[in-house]
């Protein structure tokens, strides 16, 4: 009966079954697209999986992409817990590069383990500022954080082009990029510790990403502030009556969110590119939305979803070499469908699943039998 009140899903179904169903649907639809253009979807899937996990080299690149997605996924998730939709991960990750390069170049001859924490702080400060301003505008001026962060993405892009081309580009170089960081100041690649990864782009920043995941878990569920921000996300009126400052929470959360997104700059600038280039974010901020949605805003989920999307990106890169004609944009399609199904079309599976679980649950069965017997008795 449609008017019956549906009970919430059991937790495991909510965090495991539903995302898997949505992911499966996204893969099926993408598979149909591949089929429609006359290619073999299973061969494509095989190419993606092999390309992502086939050997240490491929897996290293998968982890490199995952590192970025862990940061942007966390950025979206932290904001989401406070009821805020930070769509500005791209801009925050991008502009943070200014902070990172500003400390990495002067300190380039110091050992990396000195540069690294300073680069983190600088990246977090600039990325955090780019999150703080929309947060402040929402808290104090009432402008919607979604619109402001979209605008900030574009403003960041304009600033970065100007800074790289007019300020950071050394004379005599044609490409729009900053000077190179000396080898001493570069983040060691994980291949230096674990030879299996060879010389892939995955670097020490992955450790930072894992630390951030753990840190976010503690912050969200085991601190007073985490409780306050979750309460704000659930019911802003309640937090206000409880004497918390909603605007203060919003500003802090958006700053943290921006700082987390800013860590992408650490990975890219001192970990991979060793210089500031244009457009290095490559829409990682948007992937973060998919990661957070898939991962149910939980660090464990985000870790898994980030590896999944890292694998899709790396596998997608390999795909075009294995099957000519299938380009890596296939991955963007899969990712868009994941966002569509897990984020916007959640209503597709949830009510049906809830009904199934209700009919399967023992109490419900007992209730139904009772109702039947009453009916037959009358």
């Amino acid at each position, binding site marked *: 009966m449609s008017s019956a009140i549906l009970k919430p899903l059991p937790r495991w179904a909510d965090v495991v079954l539903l995302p898997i169903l949505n992911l499966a649907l996204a893969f099926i639809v993408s598979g149909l697209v591949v089929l429609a253009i006359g290619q073999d979807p299973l061969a494509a899937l095989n190419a993606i999986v092999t390309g992502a996990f086939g050997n240490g080299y491929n897996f290293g690149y998968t982890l490199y992409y995952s590192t970025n997605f862990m940061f942007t996924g966390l950025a979206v998730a932290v904001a989401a817990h406070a009821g805020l939709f930070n769509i500005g991960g791209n801009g925050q990750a991008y502009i943070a590069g200014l902070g990172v390069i500003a400390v990495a170049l002067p300190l380039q001859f110091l050992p990396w383990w000195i540069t690294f924490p300073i680069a983190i702080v600088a990246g977090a400060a600039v990325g955090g500022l780019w999150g703080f301003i929309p947060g402040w505008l929402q808290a104090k001026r009432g402008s919607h954080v979604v619109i*402001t962060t979209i605008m900030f993405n574009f403003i960041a892009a304009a600033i970065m082009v100007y800074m790289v081309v*007019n300020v950071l580009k050394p004379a005599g170089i044609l490409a729009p990029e900053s000077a190179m960081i000396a080898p001493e100041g570069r983040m060691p690649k994980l291949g230096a510790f674990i030879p299996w990864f060879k010389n892939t782009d995955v670097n020490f920043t992955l450790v930072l990403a894992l630390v951030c995941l753990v840190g976010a878990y503690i912050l969200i569920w085991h601190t007073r502030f985490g409780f306050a921000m979750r309460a704000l996300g659930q019911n802003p009126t309640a937090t206000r009556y409880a004497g918390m400052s909603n605007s203060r929470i919003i500003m802090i959360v958006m700053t943290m969110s921006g700082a987390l997104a800013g860590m992408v700059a650490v990975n890219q600038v001192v970990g991979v590119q060793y210089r500031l280039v244009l457009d290095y974010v490559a829409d990682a901020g948007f992937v973060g939305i998919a990661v957070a*949605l898939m991962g149910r805003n939980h660090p464990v989920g985000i870790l898994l979803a980030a590896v999944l999307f890292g694998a899709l990106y790396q596998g997608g890169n390999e795909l075009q070499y294995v099957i000519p004609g299938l380009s890596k*944009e296939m991955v*963007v*399609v899969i990712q868009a469908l994941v966002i*569509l199904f897990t*984020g*916007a079309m*959640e209503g597709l599976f949830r009510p049906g699943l809830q009904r199934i679980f209700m009919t399967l649950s023992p109490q419900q069965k007992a209730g139904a039998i009772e109702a039947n017997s009453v009916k037959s008795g009358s």
Partner: protein
Amino acid sequence: MDLGLVLSTLDATLRLSTPLLLACLAGLYSERAGVFDIGLEGKMLASAFAAAAVAAVTANVWLGLLAGLAVSITTAGLQGAAAITLRGNQLIAGVAINMLAAGLTTFLGIQWFGQGGRTPQLPVSGRFQNIDLPFANELAGVPVVGQIYSELISGHNILVYIAFLAVPITWWVLYRTRFGLRLRAVGENPKAVDTAGISVTRLRYQAVLITGFLCGLAGAFFSIAQGSGFGNNMTAGKGFIALAALIFAKWKPVPAMFTCLLFGFLDALQIRLQGTSIFGVGVPVQAIQALPYILTVILLAGFIGKAVGPKAGGVAYTKER
């Protein structure tokens, strides 16, 4: 600056503001009905690709336009299904649509045409040609008025005229028809509309489909009117500038036109100013590029005026049972 230079800059302004205006009016219908739409960009991109692909294959501009409209309206329908029927998050639906369009257009473009995502160059019959209005040539000799008529007003493609015609039509629909009244009401207070026995769902779908139609026109403008073929991500964030313009215009059609003209003018100015300086000071083109976004942020924050959107915007309507 002589008149010729002014006229050519204004001429470019008209051309550059056309897709903004179409997309802005598109967003206006949807948002006035209470459905936030950050997927304008995606629908335009999808339409631009479909229009160029069909026009390239059939060499018929009208079939191209139809294809663009059909794809954009279908996409809008999908977004509507997510936002209205399934009561999903409207913002996330928009993000998904943008990403889907960016991925699919490139993917299918590479697959079908094998030119790195571009569609083949369109033949003359596959593009909207510029229309010379009556007496444009005869009046060109008349100083000022004649020049303005022949150089500025005449000689655009049909979509430019449609875009500017859509402004009074939208105004009339919104403020002078029963549909418009209901549309505005459903964005402010859907419950009241529902109580009056009018279907909120139906109204919102109508609005979203009109949005799809106008985005379709805007997208087609990029690939089969202004350009002659589709290129990767050719809408280049214009959907978001249109969104900014919509907020800047406080969700009203006539101010929307002026805002789009202003943003179009900034764009034209930015192209003109590449490598030049004003009053001896080099103004970075990036500053002018970022100006629409900065202005919108400032306006939204209430530092100059105040932009308040439709009250029920972004919230799915749940009918009581």
